């Protein structure tokens, strides 16, 4: 156990908590600051609060009422999960990546261009490699299991939208509480929809139902999709 080299004043004056959050510290600085906040109540609270805000923003809570991102996609390739950790790979952290490191028990990899509600952001054309769990309507077999070990899960919905041009979706848990909901353009015939959900909003070992409706006729349920979560 080594004494911390960083004083509280230094931490505050150098905006250490913010630099930590933004991942702007060198390894020695990071170690120093960690040693400091393990001993300093005030900085510990500051870092915790910053991380809570960060996690909320990462889950889409700063993006408006629609938490999830949804888009039509075409499967392009398969991807194997990697489980090996190296010291450097460990720094490419699962919780920070913008190209989300899907670790769901997925079989599909997709490239999706997603749209945000803010046209100012150049990220509207960003391509992301995603893995998705394919969900079929609830009546066609057992509920797939989705891992919530990553920061997000991607669900590919086999939707028969018919003539609908816009869909609404609603995710509920077994208590019927709405976890998230939103709207999305109907995919072309034969194409599934991809729903990206922050695992922040899900619990392990729970069952969920995702209902998709025709936005123009809210009474017209298109399909329900059941899935279970695992840690």
């Amino acid at each position, binding site marked *: *156990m080594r004494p911390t080299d960083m004083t509280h004043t230094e931490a505050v004056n150098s905006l250490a908590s913010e630099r930590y959050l933004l*991942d702007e510290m060198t390894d020695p600085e990071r170690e120093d600051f960690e040693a400091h906040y393990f001993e300093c109540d005030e900085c510990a609270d500051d870092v915790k609060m910053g991380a809570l805000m960060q996690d909320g*923003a990462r889950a889409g809570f700063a993006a408006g009422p629609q938490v999830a991102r949804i888009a039509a996609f075409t499967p392009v390739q398969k991807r194997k999960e990697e489980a090996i950790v190296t010291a450097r790979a460990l720094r490419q952290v699962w919780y920070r990546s913008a190209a989300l490191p899907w670790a769901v028990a997925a079989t599909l990899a997709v490239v999706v261009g997603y749209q945000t509600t803010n046209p100012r952001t150049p990220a509207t054309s960003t391509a992301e490699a995603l893995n998705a769990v394919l969900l079929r309507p609830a009546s066609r077999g057992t509920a797939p299991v989705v891992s919530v070990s990553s920061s997000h899960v991607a669900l590919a919905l086999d939707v028969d939208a018919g003539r609908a041009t816009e869909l609404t979706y609603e995710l509920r848990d077994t208590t019927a509480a709405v976890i998230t909901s939103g709207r999305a353009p109907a995919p072309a015939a034969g194409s599934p929809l991809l729903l990206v959900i922050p695992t922040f909003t899900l619990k392990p070992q729970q069952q969920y139902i995702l209902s998709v409706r025709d936005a123009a006729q809210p009474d017209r349920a298109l399909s329900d999709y059941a899935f279970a979560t695992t840690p």
Partner: protein
Amino acid sequence: MKATADFASCATRQRGLPLPGLSRLPRYEFDGAYVERLVSEDPEIERHFTRYFGDLLSLKLRSKLRSPALVEDAKQETFVRVLTTLKKKRGLATPESLGAFVNSVANNVVFELYRSGSRVTALAEDHDEADSREGAETTLMAAEERSRVRDALADLPQKEKDLLRWVFFEGRDKDEICRELNIDRNYLRVLLHRAKNRFRDRYVSDETH
């Protein structure tokens, strides 16, 4: 790496939201009395210890380990080693350095994980799997927490919400954001600092109502 079921179940277990609830913990001084109560397995102190340091370890470890499962393993291993050492030595020579001790044990655990190439030691055959199901209370807390975080973020000025979204949700390049806002990196930190303070105010005020 093996964590005993006792400590695993004692620690706050929460998936999805990496940081367990920040609802105010009772404040304790890390002094001789605290360590003594910890060593004598006082449930209240054990609960405080695992929640307080569980949060800090989650923060520290998530930047170093690849998956939440590894973080959880490393966290539990840290708790086990700290508590085993404290019991063996009947406390700490300098109880006020408990935080530093926990941090250094966590560093060792991470180092060993690196060195072993992340291969987590197989669990013993008689390993008693910790129950990872969340209790109703924890689930309720997590739901409330999410709601409070969502509300606190929703209350921020649009400019701050944009900033948080760009940086954390969209993962945009920070230099690009600075160019767009015509600010330097240090001022970006200041803006983040202000957003965090405002978030804290909203979050805490929500807690008190």
